[in-house]
């Protein structure tokens, strides 16, 4: 099966859908066309899953690639370049899967301005998919920024009482990071272009990774990139925009935010920071791992302190994504594979938690856990899905969360880059804390006797809500007991990536040593050259 432009279709189908919703007149036409388009996109994206063959190396070119000529005059090698490899396949699948779920979750929740809402939602999906599929970093940047605008409006218009503040904070915070990344990106394009692209500025991912950057140049470029992604993840201490954004965003916004937008950060770390700047990435690995582990524990404890259920789930994201970042900076196949699958798992289980909290909010218009209590008696089905999601989120073996956490931890423990059993012990304590805050939430909201009439008469899940939750529940179980086929999709790419990082790291070190020995032989000659050869800004 070989459909031309499949990747591009998956990216732009939602955008085409946005045109349809924009032209639709009635509310139901808008909703149904949004749903239709997202469902269709999901089914088309299955073609990507089936069409992608992990046995074929993506070391020089991605699969199912779509490539244009350069957009700019010959001085710039900037192209439309998208494709699929082991690193982005599952994230794209997650995005297309959450598409219809987000639309359905908004069905009744969104009560005003349907047309712009669904239009923005669809534009957002195009942006996110594009981010994951892009193999040109300039294109990546465009999609990256494209996701900001719809999300800004989704929070700012359809959000809660403090929505404008949250939306502004979200945009400004992310923008600070991404603008710094833009500076680094331009610098990188020139520096790499000089060496690997006959002096022509390039943003082609494959050309950029083939550029063996001198160690001295890596440090600050790495930090600029990593900061942008660390804010997006968010990594402690750059996380405070997240609870605000989550609490204020409508359910659909929260789901897409937790489900895929945060993954742009972790994905960016894997896709760009590691292979572009291998030496710097390893040099700063411990710093990032420590921040990640602080995030795991800190996020969990602050989650425990919340009385707002949605805020609790938001802080749990800080904790969970700490695991992902830890896995990324441990530089082992096990841990990076764990991080890849954990990105998916987090999208599913936290997505489900946000959905359920949103369903409760729709019924009672409160997020305060104290306003609930004893719900297990009145809404058994909702309780079942809640507990299942909680258990998945808490990393119970047999459900999806365990697989990612286990691989991350087992891999990080043997990591020679980190080589810190104590740090991993702290990270592992996150499994205790996850049980503490998640069971606390279940305890307060679902157990006990009902003491409010509104809770007594609460309606259990309807068909639409079941249709939302059942696919996620099934995936929790499937990814929990049979993650192997999914892991197999990314394993070769992850291995290739780590091998490439290792060989680039050694090459850069050898090059640096060579320069030093040259400096030893002929000090005056190098002294004269130094300002031109080396960047004036060094990391040391």
């Amino acid at each position, binding site marked *: 099966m070989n459909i031309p432009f499949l990747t591009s279709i998956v990216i732009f189908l939602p955008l085409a859908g946005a045109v349809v919703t924009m032209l639709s007149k009635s509310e139901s036409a808008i909703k149904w066309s949004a749903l239709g388009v997202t469902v269709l996109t999901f089914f088309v994206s299955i073609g990507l899953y089936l069409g992608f063959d992990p046995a074929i190396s993506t070391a020089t070119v991605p699969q199912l690639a779509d490539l244009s000529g350069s957009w700019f005059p010959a001085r710039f090698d900037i192209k439309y370049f998208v494709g699929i490899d082991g690193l982005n396949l599952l994230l794209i699948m997650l995005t297309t899967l959450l598409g219809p779920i987000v639309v359905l979750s908004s069905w009744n929740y969104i009560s005003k301005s349907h047309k712009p809402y669904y239009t923005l939602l669809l534009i957002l999906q195009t942006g996110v998919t594009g981010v994951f599929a892009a193999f040109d970093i300039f294109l990546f940047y465009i999609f990256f920024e494209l996701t900001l605008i719809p999300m800004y409006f989704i929070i700012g218009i359809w959000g809660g009482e403090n929505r404008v503040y949250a939306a502004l904070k979200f945009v400004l915070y992310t923008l600070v990071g991404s603008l710094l990344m833009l500076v680094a990106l331009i610098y990188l394009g020139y520096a790499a272009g000089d060496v690997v692209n006959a002096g022509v500025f390039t943003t082609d991912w494959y050309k950029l990774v083939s550029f063996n950057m001198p160690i001295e140049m890596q440090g600050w470029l790495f930090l600029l990139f990593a900061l942008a992604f660390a804010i997006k993840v968010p990594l402690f201490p750059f996380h405070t925009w997240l609870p605000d954004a989550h609490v204020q965003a409508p359910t659909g916004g929260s789901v897409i935010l937790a489900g895929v937008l945060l993954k742009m950060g972790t994905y960016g770390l894997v896709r760009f920071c590691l292979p572009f700047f291998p030496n710097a990435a390893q040099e700063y690995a411990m710093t990032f791992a420590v921040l990640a582990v602080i995030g795991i524990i*800190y996020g969990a404890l602050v989650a425990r302190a919340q009385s707002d259920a949605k805020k609790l789930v938001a802080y749990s994201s800080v904790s969970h994504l700490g695991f992902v970042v830890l896995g990324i900076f441990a530089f082992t196949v096990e841990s990076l594979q764990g991080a890849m699958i954990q990105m998916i798992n987090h999208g599913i289980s936290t997505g489900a938690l946000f959905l359920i909290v949103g369903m409760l909010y729709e019924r009672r218009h409160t997020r305060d856990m104290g306003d609930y209590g004893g719900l297990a008696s009145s809404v058994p089905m909702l309780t079942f899905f809640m507990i299942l999601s909680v258990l998945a989120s808490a990393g119970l073996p047999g459900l999806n969360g365990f697989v990612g956490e286990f691989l991350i931890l087992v891999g990080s423990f043997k990591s020679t880059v980190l080589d810190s059993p104590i740090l991993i012990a702290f990270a592992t304590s996150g499994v205790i804390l996850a049980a503490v805050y998640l069971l606390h939430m279940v305890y307060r909201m679902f157990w006990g006797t009902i003491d409010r009439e509104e809770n007594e008469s609460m309606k259990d899940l309807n068909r639409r809500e079941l249709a939302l939750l059942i696919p996620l529940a099934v995936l929790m179980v499937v990814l929990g007991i049979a993650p192997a086929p999914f892991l197999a999709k990314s394993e070769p790419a992850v291995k290739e990536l780590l091998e490439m990082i290792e060989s680039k790291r050694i090459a850069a070190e050898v090059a640096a040593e060579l320069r030093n020995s040259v400096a030893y032989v002929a000090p005056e000659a190098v002294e004269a050259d130094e300002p031109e050869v080396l960047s004036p800004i060094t990391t040391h």
Partner: protein
Amino acid sequence: MDPELLIELVILLPLLGAAFNGLLGLFQPAHRTREKLIGTVATAMVAIPFLIAVYLFATFDGEAIVATVFTWMAAGDLTVNFAFRIDQLSLLMTMIITGVGGLIHLYSTGYMHGDDGYWRFFAYLNLFIFAMLNLVLGNNLVVLFLGWEGVGLCSYLLIGFWYKDLKNSAAANKAFIMNRIGDFAFLMAMFILFREIGALDFDSLLAGASSMDQSSINWAVLLLFIGATGKSAQIPLFTWLPDAMAGPTPVSALIHAATMVTSGLYLLARLSVIVLSAPVIMTVIAVVGALTALVAATIAITQNDIKKVLAYSTISQLGYMFLATGVGAFYVAIFHVMTHAFFKACLFLGSGSVIHSMHHVEHELAKDGHGHELDAQDMRTMGGLGKYMPATRMTFLISTLAIAGIPLFSGFFSKDEILFKAFEFGYDGHLVGWLVYGVGIVTALLTAVYMTRAYVLTFEGEERWPHADTIHPHESPWSMTTPLWILAGLAAVGGLVGIPAVIAHGDLNWIHHFLAGDQAPVAEYAVHGHVPVALEWGLIAFSSLIALFGVGLAWKWYSTEGPAFDEKLSARFGGLYRLWKGKYFVDEAYDRAIVRPLIGGAIHGLAPFDKYVVDGLVNFVGFFTRGASFTLRYIQTGIVHSYAAAIVFGVILLGWLMLS
């Protein structure tokens, strides 16, 4: 038949049962009231696996069989398969779990009759059996861990089964979180083993252990043991088990006595080769086990809630098993796991039968409007129940004698073997052996006392509930007494599989040969010097006397004076008794030292810190930027004169700079 297929069936059937009752009940409310169907399906889904296990046992030829179903996860060097292992150890455990489990399912069909959550109860119970079977049949540590956490989940769900009372849910949370602390250690042990050996299946682990350095081995074994203290309720992680009695009584019998709490022993027995290569940690295990046995036994003496007595008794007996493990007698620990499963399940089910009938008394009292509050589990308002409940009494008595270690009852054989192994370990030159032997003997005396106390206070003497002359409890239905009789029978004769070595040179000690013989999975500490036969007989006589003495003493005390005798004990032991009665104040200490600082710190420390410091800084940057721009905008006045003045001023400044 193909054993691989059969073992998959053994594991799958309880899961199917759980899914059938659970999902049907959840989505089809009409299903919830079909008690007959629910109970039959659930019981059959455990009984059939039991029959299969017996068949596998009968046809087992001593060669371990591994059934690999499919790959769970694979990444880098790590490959984890859903693979299940049939060998002596797992077969024995499977038979215990499905056998005792099946009986408890049958019992529950009567016990839970009329409960709103009947369907839920059996779904959880089946799910538990499924998880427990994964635990004992899994061929690698990760599948074992799946079962390990799975039984923890079911324990959580069943302790909090009556969720409308938040006390039960709090006990459930406590159990789950304390277990997770143990699981944390278990995970860390796996990380060490994987780093050192590169695999987590048992064959690789046992083969690779010899290549590990001593410090890694010590850490791994210590962490595994800490994991075991969580699940098996040992010091320091034992306080969840008494609270876990909040669950329905069959749950206490199945999960919190016969099966789940013994998984720590199973884990250490399964990895006995590795444990044996960490002698320092074995000493720790022996001491912690002995200490737990003693501490829990002293608490048990002071409890008035019949289930609490049994709960502390369980902790104490588990302590014995760890003691055995610590002196390298892994097979004896498993032997005691088995006999304990019989008599303790019987005792718990017996107490359930008692509680069942006391609830009846409670209802009668309420109906008559006597206005009495009655705690159906408080032994002080029982007494003389033997008259009304002959079957419950008889089976309870048999089990009491078994746990007390009266000769020829099952507990006598297994407990005596533990004490002997401790003695032998000491005789072999390990000081710790003597120490734990001494503690074991004292605990044996205490065991005989507190169990006899419980039996006498419940079944003998005069009836102490209000209006006992008119309100009579009655015996439970057949579905409940049948399991009691079967378990009591096993509690009586089950010890014969382990005739001590002093008779026929150990040839009759079947369980030793089965578990620890050639090619069998359980290793054991090899003694250098054998204890003389005469001394061995002497030891047996000594511990028998201790047991008889304890039973006799308690019988005399409590049959004449009833619960009032506790006051005498209290007066005699003073502060010590208060310490026992207060459960050594461990809960209070944990609460003050860990729980409150952690939760309080999160609420009053970290959350404000996050809001005002971390986020405060971010907002400060924002406000600063905005403030600066508000200030700077005044420069852009739009007045041409001032712009011109600025230009002139600038030119002068530049010129001055260039000239100077």
